[in-house]
């Protein structure tokens, strides 16, 4: 686990997700001071029961969302590698959503700006609660030269993969 200040990444073992949503509680308490699942930067999808998984920014190597923003509201944190949203600049146009291969960014439920995981300035709250509980779906690792973009996938795509992995042949029929 990285200790010094350096770009990080949250490794994810989606099939282990218990669906407890403690990550959402921790994230929204940290960023919004409320328990607010729909304002959480990390959201657990459960399109098929039992196939719960967290959906959140993977910090693609080429950051397509940042490039797509017409008002330069998105930037890359030098410290952590996270995508940072300038709430005042963001106009809520949604172009970053379309640019993201996983359609991960989502609008704040009551404010006019986009929500993207900011890695909690290097100390991700979601990772903390997930490890505390021993589910270990989320692990903080050093950011290397890997193809993180592969992890930016749409909820339906992830669900399909998990269906086969967890339910086998029967999984295909349940989609």
């Amino acid at each position, binding site marked *: 686990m990285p200790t010094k200040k350096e770009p990080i990444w949250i490794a994810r073992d989606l099939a282990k997700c218990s669906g407890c949503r403690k990550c959402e509680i921790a994230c929204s308490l940290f960023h919004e001071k409320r328990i607010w699942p729909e304002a959480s930067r990390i959201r657990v999808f*459960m399109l098929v029961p039992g196939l719960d998984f967290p959906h959140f920014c993977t910090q693609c190597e080429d950051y397509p969302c940042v490039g797509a923003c017409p008002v330069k509201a998105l930037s890359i944190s030098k410290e952590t590698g996270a995508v940072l949203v300038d709430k005042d600049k963001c106009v809520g146009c949604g172009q970053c959503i379309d640019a993201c291969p996983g359609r991960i960014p989502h609008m704040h439920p009551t404010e006019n700006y986009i929500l993207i995981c900011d890695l909690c300035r290097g100390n991700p709250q979601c990772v903390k609660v997930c490890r505390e509980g021993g589910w270990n779906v989320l692990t903080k690792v050093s950011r290397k030269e890997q193809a993180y973009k592969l992890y930016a996938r749409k909820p339906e795509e992830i669900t399909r993969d998990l269906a086969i992995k967890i339910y086998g042949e029967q999984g295909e029929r349940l989609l």
Partner: protein
Amino acid sequence: MILGYAGKFLEVDLSTKKVKEIKFSDDILKDYIGGRGLAAKILWDRLGSKWSEIDPLGPENLLLFLTGPLTGFFPGGRICVSGKSPQSNGVVGSTVAGEFGVELKCAGYDGIIVTGASEEPVYLFVKDSEVEIRKANHIWGKDAKQTVSKITKECRELLRERFPRKGEWREPSILYIGPAGENKVRTAVVAAKWTHAAGYGGYGAVMGSKKLKAVAVKGTGPLPEVADMKSVKRLMQSVCKDVYESELWRRWGTGAAGYEVGAKTSSEPIRNWQEEWHDEKSFGVDQFENRVWVKPYWGDFGCPTTCLKIAAVKTGRFKGAITDNPDYELQAYLGPNLGIFTPEENVFLASLIDDLGLCGIQTGNVLGFAAELFQRGILTKEDLDGLELRWGNTEAFAALARKIAFREGIGNLLAEGTYRAALKIGEMKRMDVLAYAVQSKGIGIGAHGIRSRKDYPETYSYACSVQGGDHTSTACLPLDDFRSELIMTFNDSAVYCYFNIFGIPRNLKFEFYRAVTGIELTQEEWLNPKALRILQLQRAMLLLGGPDLKWNPKIHDANPPRFYEPLPSGPYKGKTVDRAEVEKEILNYYEAVGWDENGIPKTENLKKLELDDVDRALEKLR
């Protein structure tokens, strides 16, 4: 307004298709909290004066979905479903886990009150303050898995169309019924997430009688403001810490009990409770874990325990079955109780029960009852539409479960639940078969026997409970015992999962209540007057009963006859319950909760609790 509540309830009249918002006074919320307590209050206020005439499956019954102030805050989210029960003709606060309660509060509502009945199948879609009654003809008849899938897709599509700039919409939370609920089977559940069920009470049948296939909610707001967020966070952390350290229910859920309650405490239903001991290692949790678990931890909003384990059968005769690994109750009732001792068959039946929208406990109880009648030659193969209902004949039990869900042939009779079916079969065969019905007040008894005295219920627990055979609401003295119905009522009224409170200090839940609502509440004040008042309301409605059946405490505050037979096997062979002893204990319990020697709440106690109208209504029973 009290903190922790969204501040308003949704009332939906399915007859007129009108929707409105209503509020309850702070005083009512302080006294009845939410969930089960508030359900008793709402039902008494609205239906109390004509209770005995209300058909639980008629349009005049109410169907309630109620959260509590702690829902979403206390780790382990649930929602309480209630109404006049088609099983007991009283009131059951039936809770089911999931995100529904949290979504509802985030949508701005503390609960939904459904009145009337629709002519056509419908489902309700709540997106924050937008409420729609949508057609459900295309979903009517569908099983649990198909229902969840169709509604999830449909609601996400609607959200996408209406809010195209939002990004990806998550699934709404859904409560639904399967075919059993549609067919008003009295052992039908209100279900969530394929496998979770509000089982006790039979509210799936009430939902079906209203032609309400499902309720889907998407709430995008935050949970309501609380009085002291710092303390809420601290208390959440202490609950979680305790669970992580104690590991209770974490590793195996309650799934270790399918073997252990039989082998160790001798209190597991086996072949319709003819025995309570088995030593079948084939039913050990290791076999479940190694052969069918496909996910070792599964849970609901905020839960540190995640006691559910998902099971799937991937090969062999029962291939394709998927459910949460049967918890102890479903292991027992769809396992040993039917003479079944292998994980795959148990998972197969549990999965089928989920799909049909049946209650695993109540249906397992009635299946076991039917099988014993077959064993004794009282019900013949012809009576059972050709089914060879031998113990362990999984396919025959599956076929009968389907018949029950669709009310076909003999299934139509068994769909009435064990007690009512026993009365009908008794008439049919001109003999008393109640001796084989293991139930109390129309509610099949949870899978924890009382004969060995090694399990948690007391010998009078089921006889005196205002929720009949419900193993999550056992009558127990002293009244502040953690197993006491009055203590359990707090969990079901503040609405959270009581599996997360076993190791924490007793006062923590009241501290939690204060941190959320800002209201001081001690355990003493909770027990008397608050919980006692809720208990009297539930007792009054249970005794007023009707229209098809009424309970006479002198006859029906009793254990099933089976519990007076000596245990035939195991380390506690020969042990039984002494009838005279139980009768004494029942009288003790009456005294402790303020009921007279006939089991009717006493006037002086009701007046002290300001329940004068309840007293007047009970006058005719005295």
